[in-house]
């Protein structure tokens, strides 16, 4: 501070160390960017994006489309806010959902709607998993892919990098067109829908997963499938 440059700095050669430092920064920067592009999943969007217009509640509800099964006019409507990387959601998927479908959805008593709520702060692959399931849904295999994702959760969720190849393998396993699935996965498709799902959950006060909302009311402290079934059947007309 306050010192003058050496006289040598006035000569062209005096700038050489400066240019060397610039070159070093440039090389490190370019190498880091190249590494990030290669390792980060190419064009696959792995995290929430900014979506315009979601401040309008109607636009938010329209964009935050869930994945539904059952009769929309069924007396009970259960929203499930789900995170594919959450162990509790895996338990729900294997121990609750199959029975809900078999005993209540198929009987016309329940309209079951799954919404994405990836907890991106603690589950780095949850967002891409939600997008992957939506991509599978393009080929009418959402629920098949959903089952594999939860069945293999312990495998893909521990990957240090985005498990795109794992998901493509699972897609093939459930009979999806791998190429079409991969093209969807390695793009930004459904990033807006999943982001909107997250915002909808936040608006509804969702703070963890799985969160259940039955006919507009949050279901808390339920004890297993029988208890949940009793609550659902207790809805008027169910």
């Amino acid at each position: 501070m306050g010192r003058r440059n050496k006289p040598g700095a006035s000569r062209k050669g005096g700038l050489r160390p400066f240019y060397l430092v610039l070159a070093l920064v440039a090389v490190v920067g370019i190498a880091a960017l190249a590494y990030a592009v290669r390792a980060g999943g190419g064009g696959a969007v792995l995290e929430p994006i900014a979506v315009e217009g979601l401040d309008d509640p109607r636009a938010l509800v329209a964009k935050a489309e869930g994945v539904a099964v059952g009769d929309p006019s069924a007396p009970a409507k259960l929203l499930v806010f789900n995170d594919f990387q959450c162990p509790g959601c895996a338990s729900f998927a294997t121990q609750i959902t199959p029975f809900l479908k078999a005993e209540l959805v198929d009987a016309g008593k329940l309209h079951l709607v799954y919404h994405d709520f990836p907890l991106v702060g603690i589950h780095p692959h949850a967002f891409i998993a939600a997008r992957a399931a939506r991509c599978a849904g393009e080929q009418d295999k959402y629920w098949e892919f959903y089952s594999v994702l939860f069945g293999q959760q312990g495998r893909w969720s521990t990957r240090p990098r985005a498990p795109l190849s794992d998901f493509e393998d699972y897609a093939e396993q459930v009979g999806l067109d791998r190429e079409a699935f991969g093209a969807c996965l390695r793009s930004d498709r459904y990033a807006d829908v999943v982001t909107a799902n997250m915002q909808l959950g936040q608006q509804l006060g969702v703070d963890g997963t799985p969160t259940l909302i039955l006919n507009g009311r949050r279901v808390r402290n339920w004890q297993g499938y029988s208890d949940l079934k009793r609550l659902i059947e207790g809805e008027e007309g169910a």
Partner: protein
Amino acid sequence: MSSAALDAGPAETGGATAPLTRMGIAVLSLAGLFIAAYLLLHRLGVVGTLECGVDGGCSVVQGSRWAVFLGIPVPAWGVGGYGLLFGAALAGVQPALAGDRRVAAVLFGLSAFAFGFSLYLTALEAFVIHAWCRWCLASAGIATAIFLLSLPEIRRLRRG
């Protein structure tokens, strides 16, 4: 801290020498350019995941509605701003332009804007978004350092 205290370059010699402060600005703005480019590539979907530690604040900040300013993604502003600063600083270290008032005006003006904008973004993270993006903080630190290094430009402007 006065601008004179930071001035490491003898501009009164009619532009014969290259001020060290401008060299510092050039190096820092190049580093800032890469950080902004990284965030922009993420925004464009070319980089899928931001390396952000376990707290995941980067995705919250980058996914918020404040990640766009005047219809343009904030990282794009960063790329443009740091690019201009880098170009101006690189020009300013050339002996022929060391005393050029236009270079001094561009450097000080841009760095003051970048510093103010960084303060605004950091305040948003702290008080509105309630999440921290470490890359944004690194960029804010760089913008602050560049602003401090640009203070001697005031003296060059006054000297005219």
